[in-house]
């Protein structure tokens, strides 16, 4: 029973919903705040390189939208999203083997909203979600809002341990499987083809849907592209979420979700109640941009630049990091993942590294349960190869000191 501490007369009298106690502000973003100083070499965020943003092309696209559609660009629009944009997305996904259709595509305010809306339509308090441990921390927080429980499976160099998923499916009735098959955040690993096929089979067999979160799929620098889970799906088990945040701009907040007709209908209803629709102007500007500029060329440029940066980081780590550390060698995405000796804590390394003006995210934040403290996540997309080399050298000094 709530005691009526009416004397506590000001805002601390707010009785917040208990679900809020399950949520803490993202550790990642807290750290980002202190890494804005220019002298800091930051491997902390997951930010694209701002110097590659297509600013002029976007400005031109906005001008064209105002010239062509005038006031309609500033009026309310449908929840589903601007049709030409949905058509472009569906066509793009079709070339990647996904049976996408504009009618079954919903524009969201970034893929974060896609994850949130899926939680909203599927997860009841106490429902179970199968997640990799570690995984994308904001997804964990969002599922936490719906008071979901997590059933965690491990991952190795071939991504999520699908054999453990099978075991979990045999013994419990989860509501959803959350997977990031390409260049997973935080590890940067890619789910192997055999595991992809098996995972989709299992989802079909046990009738448990998969949320495939694919923000990085376009950003492959090495190796062969693997089919997405959605492209392997025959039964409409996969809900596919992606975004323009990594390829055009994260500030615009435009993402999308594709799936079976019923799922998309339910998502549309949920989105309507959540924020009516995504910015009309930004959707139209994105569609216009995609019509008139060479998206493929732009993505190739990103692949080239980020590929160099990832290689620079991999090489520099090989050259400078002390023995006893082990890091992933991602074929794409924005991150690599370093295992430190058991006794070394990522948090403590960070404190010391900040004195050396280098930042990263300690790995513990990405675990749904039993967080080990000897992992760190490094982002390579937002620093030049020279800065990467310098930053890794600084970090190596810290590591060597801690490990000595």
């Amino acid at each position, binding site marked *: 029973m709530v005691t009526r501490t009416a004397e506590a007369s000001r805002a601390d009298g707010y009785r917040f919903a208990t679900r809020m106690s399950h949520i803490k502000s993202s550790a990642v973003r807290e750290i980002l705040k202190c890494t804005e100083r220019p002298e800091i070499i930051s491997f902390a965020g997951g930010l694209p390189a701002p110097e590659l943003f297509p600013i002029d092309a976007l400005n031109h696209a906005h001008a064209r939208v105002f010239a062509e559609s005038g006031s309609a660009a500033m009026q309310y629009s449908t929840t589903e999203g601007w049709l030409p944009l949905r058509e472009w997305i569906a066509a793009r996904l079709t070339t990647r083997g996904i049976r996408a259709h504009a009618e079954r595509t919903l524009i969201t305010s*970034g893929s974060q909203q896609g994850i949130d809306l899926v939680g909203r339509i599927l997860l009841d308090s106490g429902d179970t979600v199968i997640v990799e441990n570690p995984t994308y921390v904001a997804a964990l927080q969002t599922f936490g809002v719906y008071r979901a429980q997590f059933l965690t499976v491990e991952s190795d160099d071939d991504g999520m341990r699908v054999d453990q998923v099978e075991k979990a499916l045999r013994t419990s009735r989860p509501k959803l499987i959350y997977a990031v098959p390409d260049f997973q955040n935080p590890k940067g690993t890619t789910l192997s083809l055999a595991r992809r096929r098996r995972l989709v089979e299992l989802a079909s067999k046990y009738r448990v849907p998969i949320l495939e979160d694919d923000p990085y799929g376009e950003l492959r620098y090495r190796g062969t592209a693997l089919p997405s889970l959605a492209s392997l799906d025959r039964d409409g088990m996969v809900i596919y979420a992606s975004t323009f945040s990594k390829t055009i701009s994260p500030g615009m907040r435009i993402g999308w979700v594709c799936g079976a*007709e019923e799922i998309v209908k339910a998502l549309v209803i949920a989105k309507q109640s959540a924020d009516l629709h995504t910015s009309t102007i930004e959707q139209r500007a994105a569609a216009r941009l995609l019509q008139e500029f060479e998206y493929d060329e732009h993505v190739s440029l990103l692949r080239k630049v980020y590929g160099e940066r990832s290689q620079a980081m991999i090489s520099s780590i090989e050259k400078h990091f002390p023995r006893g550390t082990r890091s992933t060698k991602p074929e794409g995405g924005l991150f690599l993942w370093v295992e430190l000796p058991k006794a070394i804590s990522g948090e403590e390394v960070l404190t010391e590294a900040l004195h050396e003006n280098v930042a990263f995210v300690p790995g513990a934040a990405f675990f749904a349960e039993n967080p080990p403290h000897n992992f760190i996540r490094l982002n390579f997309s937002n620093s030049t190869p020279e800065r990467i080399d310098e930053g890794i050298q600084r970090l190596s000094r810290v590591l060597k000191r801690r490990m000595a």
Partner: protein
Amino acid sequence: MTMGQLSDAAAMFNDLELDRKSRIPAYVQIAAHVRNKMIGGVLKIGDRLPPNRELARRLEVHRTTVTTAYAELEADGLISSQVGRGTFVSALPAPSATTIMAGAFVRGISRRSEAAPSTGASLVAAASSSTPVKPSPMNWSAILLPVQRDRWLSGLLHSSSERDVISFAHGLPESSLFPTDDFRRSVDRVLRREGQALLQLGATSGYAPLLEFLCSNMARDGINVRPDEVLITNGCQQSLDLIRRILVGEGDEIAIEEPTYPGAISVFCSTGSRYATIPVSAAGMDLTVLEDVLMQRRPKLIYTVPTFHNPTGVTMSLSARRRLLELAVRYRVPIIEDDIYRELHYEGPMLPSLKALDQHDVVISINSFSKVGFPGLRVGWIAAPRIVVQHLNIAKQNSDLHASLLTQAAIFEFSRHGLLAKHIRKVRKEYATRRDLMIGAMEKHFPAGVRWNKPLGGMAIWVNLPEQLTAGEVLMHSAERGVVFSPGEHFFTAVQRHNSLRLCFTMASPAKIEEGVKRLGAIIKDRLSVNRKTKARRTASLRALV
């Protein structure tokens, strides 16, 4: 169509026993019965429904009851009537949404048990049928949580595309007044000046210069908040949703005005949520009822639109505002003040907002740029005590990280050069003219017995028809003649018949306002006389039977 099929169609009503004492109207019961038959697979696409007359006879109800039930289903896109052929099933309902409708009066049905296994699945099967492996399509309806689509909101978002009708239905700002060129220049300037920062991931709380601008703007209205007491959102709809997330837990109850904004109903009054409705009279929210609710049920929050209330247009007096605040403070219940119409003020003194009067940090104020003329941007804000904003920030971060930075920066750029203030003066003048035109036309064309108020601001006029008419009935006929409006039922939490309706005057040109009101007046007169005749005939036939 053979005769056999026809009687089959009527036979599906054999198991319908109308509960005539229920406060759920008969037409809702009939519509729900049809929906259940669709979900249960008894009715399939292309099946024919019994003619109105036949069904009315079988159920012993008036024909208009069946007509209204069919109109409901038709509005949901589930059935369509073809002149001379009859009425046919044209689509199947989403089982979850239907369950809610049926569950409203069929007690004891658990919310999952009704989810039909087959309907939706066949749609998915069609999408992936070209594959060699035998597909076994996912039955999504079995696991989807119940969600309710608000038809009125959908209409709001679709209505801008309807060109040929005179629409008084939705509170859309007039597109032709949008400052498109000035706004385009603002976008251009900010992209040139700070493109890299604006396209990068931003802070959840919002674009800092806009936060500061909003604070100084609010200060002019007597609201003293600092930037860390404000959160930028994707408009008021999201603001409501975020506030619900942080304050309303499972089993918590809220107090909500009735009638009210349908988007608030969709956030606070969905399946499983608990709420107490507080009637709105000519003086605004009924504070006597509110006090009873606060005392006895201790709700988690109070939602109100005290200034130019949607849909009634009523403005709460200064003394009522003070009284409302007193109650909120005494019972420790926060108020969400939806202040979205504040700038659309046409006459009379401008009263201070609840937030400006608040001495106890009890008010959460929400507002946006949508009604003054930028709905497509989706930029709104919440001003609240710091601890509340801290919680809201987390909820916002989980929802979608932050609102589009470019649109935030562009609206700031536009506003700081005084263009926003200029634009508001312009729309205020135009909307005041349109309001007066509409009221003039109503005085001229509406028959006696139709009542309305003159709102001092906002976008709409709330109209009460004579008791014997329903807004739905008038809408059915007016839509045929190219005039639409929002029937009152959309602004209430429970489905029932209403004789009230809302006419928006902002998005129709002066000529269309005159023409639309004139047609509406003719239809109302016409329905009144038809009703009189039907009533007379019904009385006559009863006598004959006796």
